[in-house]
């Protein structure tokens, strides 16, 4: 677990609230969801509805179940009780449904998880070609488009091992975007990065938010939360402890646990 890097909101481009429209269509619905690892009750009675275009930041101490929660959304982890409905499809053990949902939901990991044996371009075209059956040439054009968007088109023919951490994470974002996902999940995308690389990744994410991407984001970057989130969710011991819009969340935390966490992370 690396140190959280609190970032001042003023470091980031301010986003005008009107540009971040939220529709009333539901993108993700989690109802009474519970999960156990063996005997360990890791997620307890999670209820969460995410509308299309909403950007949600999930915060909480290490081990509180944040990763497990978002990993349940694309079934990297299986839940044992309750319902998760993504894009109108309920997650069950049906592999067809799971593959369909996974191709609609992009995920960015703390450790990038790029494929080291493939070039940057091949990393980005692999899933479109094999899952979406897009012709290779078209997939490459799309990939170059998104690589330009994350500002590293010139690295297309290098291997992940030759890139810096920040560049690798931007490639990982571009790789997910190439699948044209409707929802993006981020699991601490900046915690494995050196401080000077955090901003380039956050800028990319803010740009995505401005385009109306539905985002579920586990992060300790409170500046990012203040800049783009509609809602901040605080988790502890596998439960949602507090949930509010960012200004209220940071200025008037209600729960004692939230107050403690914020005082630790923001160093107040």
């Amino acid at each position: 677990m690396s140190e959280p890097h609190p970032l001042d909101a003023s470091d980031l481009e301010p986003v005008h609230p009107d540009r971040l429209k939220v529709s009333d269509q539901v993108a993700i619905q989690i109802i009474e969801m519970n999960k156990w690892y063996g005997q360990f009750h890791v997620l307890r009675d999670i209820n969460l509805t995410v509308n299309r275009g909403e950007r949600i930041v999930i915060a909480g101490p290490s081990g509180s179940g944040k990763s497990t929660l978002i990993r349940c959304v694309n079934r990297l982890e299986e839940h044992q009780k309750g319902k998760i409905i993504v894009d109108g499809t309920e997650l069950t053990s049906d592999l067809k449904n799971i593959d369909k949902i996974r191709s609609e939901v992009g995920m960015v990991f703390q450790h990038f998880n790029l494929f080291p044996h493939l070039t940057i371009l091949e990393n980005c075209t692999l899933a479109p070609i094999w899952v979406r059956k897009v012709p290779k040439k078209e997939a490459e054009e799309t990939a170059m488009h998104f690589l330009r968007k994350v500002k590293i088109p010139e690295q297309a023919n290098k291997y992940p091992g030759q890139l810096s951490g920040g560049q690798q994470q931007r490639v990982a974002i571009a790789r997910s975007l190439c699948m044209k996902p409707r929802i993006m999940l981020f699991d601490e995308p900046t915690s494995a990065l050196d401080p000077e690389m955090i901003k380039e990744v956050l800028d990319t994410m803010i740009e995505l938010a401005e385009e109306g991407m539905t985002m579920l984001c586990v992060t300790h970057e409170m500046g990012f939360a203040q800049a783009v989130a509609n809602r901040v969710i605080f988790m502890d011991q596998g439960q949602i402890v507090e949930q509010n819009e960012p200004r209220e969340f940071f200025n008037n935390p209600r729960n004692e646990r939230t107050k403690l966490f914020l005082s630790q992370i923001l160093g107040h």
Partner: protein
Amino acid sequence: MANQAMPFSRSEMLPPEPPPGSAVGVVGWLRANLFSSIGNSILTILALALIWLVLSHVWPWLAHAVWNADSYAQCRQIIADTWGPDAGGACLAVIRERWKQFMFGFYPIEAYWRPTLAFILMFVALAPILFSALPRKMLWFSLIFPGLAYWLLWGGSIFVPIVIYAGFAAGWLGFHLGARASAAFVAPLLAAVFALVWWFFIASPLINLLPDIGLMPVQSKQFGGFMLSVTIGVTGIAFSLPLGVLLALGRRSDLVFVKAICVGFIEFIRGVPLIALLLVASFLLNIFMPPGTNFDIILRVIIMVTLFSAAYMAEVIRGGLAALPRGQYEGADALGLNFWQATRLVIMPQALKISIPGIVNTFIGLFKDTTLVAIIGLLDPIGLITSIRANAAWNGMVWELYGFVAVLFFVCCFGMSKYSQYLERKLRTDHR
């Protein structure tokens, strides 16, 4: 000398300089690698003495070699006449006389061109697999090659390999029908069923219907020499890798039944000596076959050698799979790749790359183990040596014969080893 405590700011940056002379050049290399310390120097001198000792015996032996003679006795006579009564020398005349036998065993002389052609085509088929810079279209030939080589070596009707190949097409059809199912194991299962039904129930009546156009058939018992080693070795290598991959995947499977079968198979095979399997292939297998079926001895041996190596291969590849971080599986899953796509495109390329040294190790072991077939009476190079030594003319020869076979095998195995080092260098994608 600046005061340590003083504030300091560099006014100009230092340019890079070449390393000092003692670290570079021949002298630098010698000093660093051979004479870096007293202990190292002593070892260097001892090693040089040892090399000299070996060479001083081997070199005259090779320099006195006799190529033209009809028997071992005549060889010794010639060496004694030329180099004096005490001189030793290699009697390479035996290699010269038995060269063709060493290569082809008792294969019909008028058909020598067939294994020779198959051997040359083998390199054409291997080239695109070994070197990715070659055009990918050549892989089609690599796919056809096994059938073609079978037909060239054993002769018979051209339709036999064609009908057998059609079985793979049936398997492919089964796989694609099964891929629509939601469980990942349906596809390979259906593929296996389709292919087996074709081979066991459709192939042989179909071949009987088709006209018998082809080459003169050659019996397996006429096969021998290096050609036999290469046939068994290359086929075993080609099949043990994919089978090993499947076993390794099966061993990690969540499906209890699949896992149990794979674990059972691997542990059984690893616990039994290859020679026992070969004896089973040679004596016992026919007892279990329906009477009248003629299950070819070379085919039986190839199956046993393949199964044997596949078990080792599976463990080597399992090591490679275990070395992959979980993030690679999750990255592939999160993109929506299904199990077989993730395995083929993301997991296996990396796991195989990690396993290259172990895989090549198993290949080399397999190739050398082909000499064990001498024990069940096949005339591979070692089997031939036994029969050559039984001949009155060459009675009592040891070094020349075994040395020659050793050199043949060394060239092949060293080649594989060198290739694997090349491949490892080529597949390195970090910090290039």
